[in-house]
């Protein structure tokens, strides 16, 4: 086999922003989840309030009031009021461990429910807004129902305008205001094209996997595949991000990680090879790539790491040979880094997938229903990512329906303090991408008022949002040009 010596463009890569997703060495699973919401409110309320005042105007005697606490709206006789709080959707069909007790089974104690097979919304769902002083039921009859379901998802901190309906005791909402995007670092000029490559769900060892596709990808990244017509060459790819699920989710065993490696029971010889193979394959693949290109490997749902978000990096012992290479960074999920001052942030997809379950599946998923898994379309993924940016939160449904670590030190690491330049979600059904330009501060979707609240120079923010498809299903990887923030898809498959 012929291989071209490649002179790679070097980039300044900073992994330190990912540190906030690394859990302390001594972890405490004592505090309750209330702290997570509480710190989220604390970090976001001021921003949301500021932006709401731009959208709705300052309070006016007898006309519009800002309620300091949700509990107080009961005393404001049907006057237009703005409240700020965290949204909670009470959905009877959410996966619930208590409900599992009613399901006949032979287990003495029911196992936690399987999220993947559930859909949440039903007609009798109730939506609440809550702050540390109380909660109030929302009446959404005056809102467009599509807006209401997409925006009012558990965990978002929002400002709502409306009034209390004395008869029902609920708050009739007529407008919503978001925090708006967080400040963004300026984007210095780059002299030439540089690319980062994002892939996800390599799923080594998958039963019906396309072994050759991964080999082709490897060839491409090492520079043996020749020039790309759209200008991305092996030489100007500066970083590979593997966004989770390097090994497949095995359906026949009880939980993901146990299936990937030797289980705790002694394995039969044949079984051991079959089961142990995937992670060895991953190690080999990463070793080869890392020898010529910096690689960041994030864990995903199926990988042998912890389950609660943020997922911690792969342990050294699982990737023994690739770990020896300094070019390989084992990183957490979510992950953030900066490459030549471009801030890149993303997840292995769980927050988006879970978020999508809050919508009516029939309208969102269309033909995305495969093997009992519901996954949103590419456009829907982009809508969700945009909303997350607007609400400054990258995993709103944590911890309610998306399992997360019980943070208690007063910080919610999923709050977006700044806006990245590239924002991606891995393991999606299909590729999609959008450049979101925010000329000034976009406040409310329906209102055209434009003022700068965060005082960032220029005011304009540009974010490339990307739905990164599963490699095992599409053979596609995404290349983002760091100079232009343009996006290219490359496909590697036997059929090519």
């Amino acid at each position, binding site marked *: 086999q012929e291989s071209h010596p490649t002179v790679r463009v070097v980039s300044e890569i900073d992994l330190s922003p990912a540190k906030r997703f690394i859990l302390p060495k001594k972890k405490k699973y004592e505090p309750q989840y209330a702290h997570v919401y509480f710190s989220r409110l604390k970090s976001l309320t001021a921003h949301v309030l500021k932006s709401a005042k731009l959208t709705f105007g300052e309070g006016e005697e007898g006309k519009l009031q800002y309620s300091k606490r949700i509990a107080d709206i009961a005393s404001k006789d049907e006057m237009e009021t703005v409240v700020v709080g965290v949204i909670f959707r009470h959905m009877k069909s959410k996966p619930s461990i208590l409900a599992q007790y009613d399901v006949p089974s032979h287990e003495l104690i029911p196992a936690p429910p399987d999220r993947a097979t559930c859909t949440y919304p039903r007609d009798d769902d109730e939506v609440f807004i809550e702050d540390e002083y109380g909660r109030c039921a929302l009446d959404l009859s005056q809102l467009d129902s599509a807006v209401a379901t997409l925006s009012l998802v558990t965990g978002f901190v929002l400002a709502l305008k409306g009034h209390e309906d004395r008869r029902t005791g609920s708050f009739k909402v007529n407008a919503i205001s978001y925090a708006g995007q967080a400040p963004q670092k300026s984007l210095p000029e780059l002299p030439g094209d540089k690319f980062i490559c994002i892939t996800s769900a390599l799923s080594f060892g998958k039963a019906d996997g396309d072994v050759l596709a991964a080999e082709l990808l490897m060839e491409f990244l090492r520079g043996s595949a020749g020039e790309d017509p759209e200008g991305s060459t092996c030489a100007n790819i500066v970083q590979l991000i593997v966004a989770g699920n390097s090994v497949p989710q095995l359906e026949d065993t009880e939980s993901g990680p146990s299936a990937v490696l030797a*289980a705790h029971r002694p394995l039969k010889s044949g079984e051991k090879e079959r089961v142990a193979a995937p992670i060895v394959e991953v190690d080999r693949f990463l070793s080869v790539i890392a020898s010529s290109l910096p690689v960041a490997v994030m864990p995903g749902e199926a990988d042998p790491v912890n389950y609660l978000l943020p997922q911690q990096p792969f342990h050294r012992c699982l990737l023994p040979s690739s770990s020896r290479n300094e070019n390989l960074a084992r990183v957490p999920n979510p992950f953030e880094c900066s490459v030549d001052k471009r801030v890149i942030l993303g997840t292995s997809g769980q927050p988006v997938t879970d978020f999508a379950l809050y919508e009516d599946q029939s309208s969102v998923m269309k033909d995305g229903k495969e093997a009992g898994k519901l996954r949103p379309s590419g456009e829907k993924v982009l809508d969700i990512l945009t909303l997350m940016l607007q609400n400054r939160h990258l995993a709103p449904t944590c911890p*309610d329906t998306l*399992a997360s670590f019980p943070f208690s030190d007063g910080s919610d690491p999923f709050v977006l303090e700044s806006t990245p330049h590239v924002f991606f979600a891995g393991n999606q059904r299909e590729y999609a991408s959008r450049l979101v330009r925010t000329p000034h501060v976009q406040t409310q979707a329906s209102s055209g008022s434009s003022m700068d609240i965060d005082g960032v120079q220029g005011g304009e923010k540009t974010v490339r949002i990307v739905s990164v498809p599963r490699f095992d299903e599409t053979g596609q990887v995404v290349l983002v040009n760091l100079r232009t923030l343009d996006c290219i898809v490359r496909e590697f498959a036997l059929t090519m």
Partner: protein
Amino acid sequence: MFGLTEGGSSVLVRVHHFYHYFYLPVTDGIQPEALAEAINRRLWNDKTVPRDRTVVTNVEITTKRSIMYFIPGDPEVKFYKITLLNPRHTKDVARILQRGGLSVKKPNDVTAKLPELPTFESTLDYLLRFMIEVGLVGCSWLTLPAGKYTITEHKKSLLQVEIDVHANDIIAHNPEGKWLRTAPLRRLSFDIECAGRKGIFPEPEHDKVIQIANYVWDHGHKKPIAQVVFTLKSCAAIVGADVVSYENEEELLSAWARFVRLTDPDILTGYNIVNFDLPYLLDRAAQLKVADFPLLGRMIGQPTTMRKTRMSSSAFGTHESHAFSMHGRVIFDMLQLITREYKLRSYSLNSVSAEFLGQQKEDVHYSIIGDLQRGDEQTRRRLAVYCLKDALLPVRLMDKLMSLTNYMEMARVTGIPLGWLVSRGHMIKVVSLLHRKSHLVDLLIPDIKRSGPEGGGGDGPQFEGATVIKPEKGYYKDPIATLDFASLYPSIIMAHNLCYSTLVRPVHLAHMKPEDLSKSPSGASFVKRSVKKGILTKILEELLAARKQAKKDLKAAKDPFLQSVLNGRQLALKISANAVYGFTGASVGKLPCMDISASTTAYGRQMIDNTRLEVEKRYKGATVIYGDTDSVMIKFGNGKSLEECMRLGEEAAEAISSIFPKPVKLEFEKCYYPYLLISKKRYAGLLWTNTEKYDKMDCKGIEAVRRDNCRLVANVISSVLEFLLKKRDLQQAISMVKKVISDLLQNKIDVSLLVVSKSLTKTDYENKQAHVVLAEKLRKRDPGTAPAIGDRVPYVITKGRKNEPAYSRAEDPLYVLERNIPIDNNYYLENMLRKPLERIFEPVMKSSVNSLFVGEHTRTISVVTPKKGGMAKYTKVRLKCLGCKAPINEGALCAYCVPKEAEHYTKNLNTMVKLEKAYSSLWTECQRCMGDICHDVLCSNGDCPIFYRRRKAQIDLNAASEKVSRFGLDW
């Protein structure tokens, strides 16, 4: 009479000119006037009433019969009808006559002394007498014709309208047709919170009432009229509810009483209000001298009083309780109602709402309540939200269980006021039915001297039980057809014309034609219906005909509210019909008659026997494997299909019915397939009513649901039944049980499954019971949170010292979890699991049952080391290799295990991942249930299945995460 108009306006109707009366057999030669005078004079002399008052206003002679015994020729008898001005004196007058010795002047001026005489119907309540005479039943409509009444200006009550009317002008309507609707009764549901001192259950002498939450909700309406919470000290606003705060407790109490008068509910409800909330409020108000507080009734100036009562009833058991005089309002305590009508593991509001409403409820322990009250307006708001929920749940339960609708129908069917259904036993229903029917046919009911405690009731029938056919224990894989006698006892009474009025005394037998008589298997003789139809027969015929009609109407009804009314009616009719038999058998009842009840059961037994003979005669190879009270279980033979058995069952029911007198009817309803017959009254099987799919798994008498068992027993038993009956796989059942036993011995069973809980009562202190001893231990540990009387004490049995009795080895499950104290696995195996398992497996495995408890799977026994206390004090914990347990100094693995690092890492990681999943789903569930995501979960609801599990998940996850961390992190 208190009532509502159709539009919901409250009305007080004052009925005039209705006088109470009772009967006395006529003594020859004594004139009615003379008798009246004699009674009045006697009352004056005894100083029972002042001399200027006439008690007996009229005595007249009427012709009636006594309900007791059939006398040859059925002659009429003369009675004095003694009418009194004031019903209050009925007892006095009746007693004078019963004791005898009253001097009465005969027309010839000779004074005669009356002998002891039996009175008739003097014990009938005045109110019931009035209702019977007017033809009024409970919860029904009546018309007061225009011009026949006057509206009172000077009201004596809180009702909107007050009317005076003559008793004869009232027109009562049967609750049929357009009078079927029910009135929109106003319900007030409330719950109070008291600030207890640390560790002591609140007492009204010391502890303040700090909150009273209320829901006002008209029956049949979709939304409440008001949600109000009264708080002591400020409380932050609650969306959707009105919060009223007071600085001083007297004002709070007084304001609440005003609120009750203002909203003027017909029904006062809540959970345990009769024995907690109401007495507490009344006692507390008395303590604080809040004079206007007891004015909770509807009559102006008439305070509510309470007294302690013991109510005993054969059906409901004996209860210590409180009785209140609160004019015009019915106190409808959902706790009392549910304990009467449902058998549950626990009657706490938590588990009751989990059972019926399908929701767990947050439980704030009363030791925290004080802290919340002492906090600020936000913590008090938290408490108020909780309190409101406790006020809401009883109404939700009432609606869900259709309690009010069903009780209203019961009042209508039996003809008694709604309040009596709550405050009295079953007996009064039959009394009302009996009097109503007798009144129409001029039969009089004698007064029976009471021997039991006040309030009636007492023991059930004291004769041979009803089981006849000895169960042939076994596990039947062939379908078992079940034939049931429909309404067995009522049918027998009707078929054989059993009644007070048809019973013939032995002395009269000689004077009767034998063909007019039938002699029951127990030896009593009754006349046939061709001679005289019994009152009981008539009552039952009417009840059953009415039930048929109600069921027919129910099918035709479209409106859901009407459906619930009709369903309530048919249920009430069924219950009432069955109550008749019990009434005749209640030895200290109003009118016991052992001849009737003993004959009924004797006929029943005979019928079951005959059925068996008939079945085995008609069908070759068929055997009756078991027969109880009103059903027989038939195995038609080996290898018969389900279809075949259903057809044969159908056929047999029809054929055999014909050998019994009408209206006795044998019905085929279901097959059990397969069927596990354990012993008398204990069996389980899959129940089939069609051949396509079984309806359900039916278990009778299997003690999986008993309260003093831990969940493990219930879960294992139900799993075993599941395997045996649904999967028909004995081997799987056995291996499941072995696995559980093995897990138990190896400490792999979740503690939440081992928790037993018992409630601490006053009388427990003398004997050494596990929960009592533990409560004492906890009090020493922390008096602030120790259980008080009335609390449930959850515990697990730990290993303890050698030979230490089990009761002193009980320990708080949380304490055990936190300190890793070893559980006495053997105790659970031998004292909890063994008996129920043996019982279930015995019919299947016969003598090899013991193999479940010995063998390979019982060999491995792990013992955990406690973290604190005991020997742990003297030991130093050294790190061990996570692979081979060799002692090491640091890290995770010893040098020999390092090459297999990935394997050991993954093994530990897997354990952690499982726990992470459990941890997050358990704690988010509690956060959701609490209805608040910004505050910590405080709930201490030990009845909730995940209460201990969530704490265990925390502890285990911390341990697992620590192990994983030992492999090192490189970030």
